């Protein structure tokens, strides 16, 4: 098997990583996290085993970069809220989805991560457990609790969308 040009990795996984970053950080900081993720990935890419799951690898990097962004944000003297005040103006998905972002932003960190990695990136719970630490069962519970909480605060999530 051959290592494909990094450009192809960006083409194939850029969108998923962007969505994962949005769920982890909100729309505002997602782009910085995306950029940091792909720059770090490009640095390490020659050493990635040819048969590695590139998406899981990228999500693992995004996980770390998102933590960096959160830490940097906490150090700021006047921290910005997690959810933009007027989300639609910042290019978030369709009208009215500000509610969804508020719902996601209100989730406890672990649940937010588990939702991002399972429902957005499509990783298996065993893979998520490797990223978050803990067991696959714990990852499954965090994702399930996250979805339950999302449904409570954002009922649309229960009625639409493709089953995972």
């Amino acid at each position, binding site marked *: 098997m051959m290592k494909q*040009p990094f450009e192809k990795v960006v083409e194939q996984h850029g*969108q998923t990583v962007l969505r994962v970053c949005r769920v982890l950080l909100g729309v505002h900081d997602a782009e910085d996290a995306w950029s940091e993720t792909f720059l770090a990935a490009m*640095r390490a890419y020659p050493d990635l085993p040819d048969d590695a799951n590139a998406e899981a690898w990228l999500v693992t990097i995004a996980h770390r970069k998102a933590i960096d962004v959160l830490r940097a944000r906490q150090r700021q003297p006047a921290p910005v809220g997690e959810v933009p005040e007027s989300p639609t103006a910042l290019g978030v998905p369709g009208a009215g989805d500000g509610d969804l972002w508020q719902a996601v932003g209100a989730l406890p960190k672990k649940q937010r991560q588990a939702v991002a990695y399972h429902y957005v990136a499509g990783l298996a719970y065993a893979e998520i457990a490797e990223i978050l630490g803990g067991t696959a069962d714990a990852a499954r519970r965090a994702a399930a609790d996250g979805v339950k909480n999302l449904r409570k605060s954002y009922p649309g999530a229960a009625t639409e*969308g493709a089953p995972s």
Partner: protein
Amino acid sequence: MNISPDYFASPADPDTLRRLGHRLGLAAEAEGLLDVAYTTVDSPVGTLLLAATPKGLVRVAYDVEDHDRVLDALSQRLSPRVLRAPKRLDAAARELDEYFGRQRRVFDLPLDLSLSSGFRQLVQRYLPEIGYGQTRTYGQVAELVGSPKAVRAVGTACATNPLPVVVPCHRVLRADGTPGGYVGGPGAKKALLSLEAAA
């Protein structure tokens, strides 16, 4: 469990990703991570892929060579750190434009010849000595590089030229005056020869 990734999509995603990709190219260049930058340009002989390392232009590829395959080969032979990052190719794109517009007869670009070696590279280094609008036969080139019997090897060196157009293998013809093979197809070779003849 009906949370779908599409909830976290945005109609602006393609634009956002294009912008982020551009930003990645600049950051990778600044960090010294951009081992191979490439872009594509339109030309009278079809879409050309241009690729450069930090050393210089390393590959010009015709459409018929299949750009995806060319990029795969660059990834394998040079480095997988390959990004579409047109900025590094600005000068090459400009000079090609001038060449096709008959405003330029000589390319003045740093070249990276690391995709060829040995006799092939020797021949490819020699080719720019054949001036604009001139032609040589494979046999003449073999003589000029000091291996008069290596006519066939000169043919191979021309056929495997990683930098067609810029390194003018199109100026090498068969002894009977017919164009002979060309990496971009016989039509492209004829087009370049008549472009240069008309000037």
